[in-house]
């Protein structure tokens, strides 16, 4: 196990290095840069822009800028945002709660409903329920989230007036109920795709488990069908789902770009879009590294979890 961990950690560090180099170079190759937004300001001269460039260290060669950034990162300094001068980690921290709330809720909905649909679909294969679930999942996967979002806003906010059209809460009303009210529409819209993914995976995993010999043995022993499914099938079918959960874990913290924009949700996805728009390199790089670390961690946790849950898997 220790060998496995050390091996995975060294691989992860190399991966992070590659991600950071590519991210840094691509970002800085874009012409214009963070000061282009001032180009049309009355009174702003090229001299002012050149001075700012020097103060921000943007006039140095790219490799020097990268080494400086990487060296600071190793010391725990993620840099400061060009936009508001705040430390990058603080900027990211300000948006984590909103994303965690939205993504956490929608993931919980997706896991609960998706798992249930998947198991029921598998145990009632080719039934009407299974067909509807299959078609429903296909629809949910093929239609873009923003479309669902806009339709949801149109029906439930503008037409019926039941739910807010956006925002995380009403300004001046920070009650839990108010947050929940605002959470309903975006979390349902966001969970649609995830329900589809979870139900498909769960259905396949359940079918796999049903065909195993130990299930046949359990049935032969005269256990009730319900007991067979709950005890022997579901437990085993959940194993591959741990990997899926590990892969999905980073998205809970990095946010949903489209949904956050449609619902004016102040989360990480929108922070990423805004920071790109302003060429706020330190924040974009911070977000890139943050999500890369999460992806690596998510996979690592999934691998370890599977190893712990299923002793048949031996890790070298």
């Amino acid at each position: 196990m220790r060998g496995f961990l050390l091996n995975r950690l060294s691989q992860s560090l190399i991966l992070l290095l590659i991600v950071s180099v590519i991210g840094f170079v691509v970002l800085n190759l874009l012409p214009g840069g963070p000061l282009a937004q001032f180009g049309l300001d009355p009174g702003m001269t090229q001299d002012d822009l050149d001075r700012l460039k020097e103060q921000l260290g943007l006039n140095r060669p790219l490799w020097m800028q990268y080494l400086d950034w990487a060296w600071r990162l190793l010391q725990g300094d993620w840099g400061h945002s060009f936009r508001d001068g705040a430390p990058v980690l603080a900027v990211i921290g300000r948006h984590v709660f909103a994303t965690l709330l939205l993504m956490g809720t929608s993931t919980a909905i997706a896991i609960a409903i998706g798992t249930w649909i998947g198991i029921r679909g598998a145990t009632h294969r080719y039934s009407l329920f299974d067909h509807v679930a299959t078609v429903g999942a296909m629809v949910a996967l093929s239609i873009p989230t923003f479309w669902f979002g806009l339709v949801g806003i149109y029906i439930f906010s503008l037409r019926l007036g039941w739910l807010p059209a956006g925002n995380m809460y009403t300004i001046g009303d920070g009650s839990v109920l108010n947050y929940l009210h605002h959470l309903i529409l975006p979390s349902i819209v966001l969970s649609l795709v995830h329900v589809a993914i979870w139900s498909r995976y769960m259905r396949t995993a359940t079918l796999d488990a049903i065909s195993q010999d130990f299930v046949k043995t359990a049935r032969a022993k005269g256990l009730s069908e319900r007991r067979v499914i709950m005890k022997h099938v579901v437990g085993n079918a959940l194993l591959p789902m741990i990997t899926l959960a590990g892969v999905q874990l980073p998205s809970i913290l990095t946010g949903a770009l489209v949904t956050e924009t449609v619902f004016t949700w102040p989360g990480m996805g929108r922070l990423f879009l805004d920071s790109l728009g302003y060429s706020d390199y330190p924040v974009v790089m911070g977000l890139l590294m943050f999500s890369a670390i999460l992806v690596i961690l998510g996979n690592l946790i999934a691998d370890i979890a599977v190893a712990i849950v299923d002793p048949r898997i031996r890790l070298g």
Partner: protein
Amino acid sequence: MTERSNTKSNYSRRDALRLMAIGGAAGLIAPNLLGKPAFAQNPPASPTGRVVVGFSQEPTVFNPLMPHTECDDAVHFSVFDALVRMDSKGVLQPNLVVEVPSQKNGGISEDGLLWRIRLRDDVRWHDGQPFTAEDVKFTLELITNPKFRAWRTAGHSLVRDLKVVSPTELTWRMEEAFAPYLSFLAETFMVPKHILEKEADPNAAAFNQAPVGTGAFKWAQRIAGDHIELVANADYAGEGPYLERLVFKYIPDMTVLYTQFKSGDIDLVDQAFITADHYGEASKLPDRVVMLERGASVESIYLNLEKPQFKDPAVRQALYAAIDRKAILEGLYYGVHNPTETFMPQNSYYYNPNLPAQEFNIERARQLLDEAGWVPGADGIRVKDGVRLSFANSTTSGNHLREQTQQFLQQTFAEIGVEMTISNLPAAVMWGDFWLKSQFESAISGVTNVIAGDPDVSNRLHTKAIVAKGGKGSNTGQYSNPEVDALLEKGARTFDREERRAIYLRVQEIVRQDLPFLPLFAYANVFGRKEGLEGFEANSNARVASWHAAGWHWKD
């Protein structure tokens, strides 16, 4: 033309002219006699209620001296004060000073070099400390501190020998006479010395995230990516505030912003305003006041005058004659904006209304080119001395109205034997070196030429402002005319309003004749607010609608 009778502003061209006349008269008669501007009608005795202002960009820069965009101005105007303030009529009013310094009252010497500023003695910072001349000295010196990441330094770099005479008085000497500096000061907000002097690095000060000012509203909190909340400063030295809370809400999508204005989630639409295509519908909304107000920006086709095809004045005149501005304005821009012949904002005291009006005339355009010797080649495109009358036109990609304008122009230019190709770029690329260092052939851009209402346009039109030729400024079209240069230099040295007016009227005449850029229209902003929100006043001399939230209040 969009039907305007439904608007509650009762806006008309005649009204605008009347307003300008009143503004001009007020400028002559009452620059320093008005005292507090009477913005509010029947305001409440103590601050009550809350206003939510919607922005399509997020305010993120709260130190007003650091590089920022328009939306940040809203926070700055509410939390901080400047020495003077440019009101909606283009007249400078005292803000932190007792009186606006002038040559008449001895605040500025006859040669324009020595300045004496007298401050109010009743102003306090939000933390209770008194505001003094030391703060002004600290602010002006911080801007030119090479270690500080200051926004623009124009004007400030001319200040020498800053001396604090007493807590309410200070003096300085200007390196050269520079009349626009008074207006520049209207956009220079004072920051507290007692807080910032303790910081080792003012660029990373805690103050930058939680500012302390002298303004009508105090900083309360910021929910990043969502909104900023300010609360009334009960000890404010000036007029107001009448609101208990002021909220700046960030809604990145323009359609969602407008939807939330419709649904009542936001009370007022600020910078970015309501888009022209929503104007018709917005003006019919119940319980909403929608106003069309002249802005400071002018949309023009900028020509890079160093390109051989644009050096010939006949080509510029022919292109101008070949633009069907009426069709563009009414067909594409819903009749919201106004035709103009100059770079000067139309409600400026310095606007020249007597310039010859552009006339769309394809025949005249052809004739001009024929007379100048531009002969159609084998492919129908005109040629003279080996130069083809062909050029690329660039603007921000994704701006569909500008793109449609380009396609329309492309067709009409082709009718006079001119080839225009379209080559658009993302905003972050377009307004970088490509624009500033004159790498474009022609460009469509909406440009604000004046700072805080001052008519000085040296930065845009003086030969010394051509960066591509080693100058300092943003004369990106590379316009150069010795007579204009001389007039601009004289204008910057002249403090008398009337004398300056004559100078800038003449500058506009010459520029209209030279046509270094081809004006398409002057922007009008569509302001929208909830009915009952009073004390609101549009001000084309400020970049945001929330320039004077101190005067806002809800009707009883």
